[in-house]
């Protein structure tokens, strides 16, 4: 490599190094800062510490945790808060970068709309409706229990409600909810919503077995298998029914 070329290379690289220090936001910054921090764009160390990144302590010198969502950094009330209820006061620790990224290039890697609820104090974690609006559909309007009975705090869907605990929706029962829960009333159900289970037929079959209390089907039947019977009627009656059926089949032969 010639001496001239070496010099040209050295000068160019030195110019680039100087530019990196004079215009760090253009040369090395991972994208534009959020508008609120635009004034800080050439002052990387306003937020960053060398080799340890952006530190929460630096954020909280301006953004007091007790004021977030209520007052601006200059102490004025916030006209239009981003959340209905201020919740930063209920965080277990001030780990700002766990949720916030100010550079456009870093924000790209954040999954928007995700919030780790473990960052909240335990009591605040159970108060879903202070931040979230309750769904207004027929199903949720009837639910009076805690959201966590069916939903995890990681994601709303899929809900963890397990219908199998009550009745297994197998291929024979792959139907619309209203077939069993008339008018979407999930506090009650009926098994007579389809032509397979007419009230007369069910009554006849149960009376044959000596079962008179057959109004609450899921008390004994948890799936489409009529031999998989639970409760007090399960053992004796199930076997009786089997033996009776076998006898009937034998008679038919």
């Amino acid at each position, binding site marked *: 490599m010639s001496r001239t070329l070496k010099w040209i290379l050295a000068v160019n*690289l030195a110019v680039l190094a100087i*530019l990196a220090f004079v215009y760090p936001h253009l040369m090395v910054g991972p*994208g534009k800062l959020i508008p609120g921090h635009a004034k800080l764009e050439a002052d*990387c160390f306003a937020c960053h510490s060398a080799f340890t*990144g952006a530190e929460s302590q630096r954020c909280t010198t301006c953004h007091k945790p007790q004021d977030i969502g209520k007052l601006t950094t200059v102490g004025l009330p916030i006209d239009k808060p981003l959340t209905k209820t201020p919740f930063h006061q209920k965080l277990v620790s001030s780990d700002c970068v766990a949720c916030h990224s100010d550079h456009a*290039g870093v924000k790209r*890697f954040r999954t928007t709309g995700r919030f780790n609820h473990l960052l909240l104090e335990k009591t605040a974690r159970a108060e879903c409706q202070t931040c979230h609006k309750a769904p207004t559909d027929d199903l949720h309007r009837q639910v009076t229990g805690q959201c966590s009975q069916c939903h995890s705090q990681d994601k709303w869907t899929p809900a963890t409600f397990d219908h199998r605990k009550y009745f297994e929706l197998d291929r024979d029962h792959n139907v619309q909810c209203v077939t069993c829960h008339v008018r979407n009333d999930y506090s009650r159900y009926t098994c007579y919503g389809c032509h397979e289970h007419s009230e007369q037929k069910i009554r006849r079959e149960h009376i044959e077995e000596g079962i008179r209390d057959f109004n609450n089907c899921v008390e004994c039947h948890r799936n489409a298998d009529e031999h998989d019977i639970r409760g007090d009627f399960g053992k004796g009656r199930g076997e009786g029914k089997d033996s009776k059926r076998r006898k009937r089949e034998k008679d038919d032969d």
Partner: protein
Amino acid sequence: MTHNLWRSHILPFTLLVGLLGAATLVGDFLLHRFNLVWIGRYLGIPGTLLIIASLFYSLRKRKMIASGNVKSWLRMHEVGTWLGSLMVLLHAGIHFNAILPWLATVAMGVNVISGMVGKLLLGRSREHVLGQRDHYQLRGMSKEDIERAVFWDAVTLDAMAKWRKVHIPIFIVFAVLALGHILSIFLFWGWA
């Protein structure tokens, strides 16, 4: 330039460069399609390590290290730099955030092309011109006629040899720019 030189040497070179571009586009698309963009964010690290590892060939060639077969090191240099470049290109994605890393990416691209010229064109073209000379000699052509026949091949070869001379300076530019990018990441990244 003869038709053969284009078909046998420049075309494979173009294909190898094109394959790098195509693999980058396909990889970038797949990372976005399957919501795995975060993988691209970290591909810069193995990509850089592969490129650094491939430099052992240069050390071996200059006898700065003695172990290993030069041919094997060369193979590793070729594969390592191609694969490392692919990873770095995927890491860069199509997002423009800062000037320095993009200058490093461009310098890397020029460096890869320069390296491929060294690998494909220079090596094969030299063999091709020598082969052509032998062929014409066997046919009983005079020395002047042979020189005339291989003239454009020789000119191309000469130009390519000169072009290859910029490979080292380009590498130095790439190395310094990449180092600047890596240092800035070390300086500002939240390692804690």
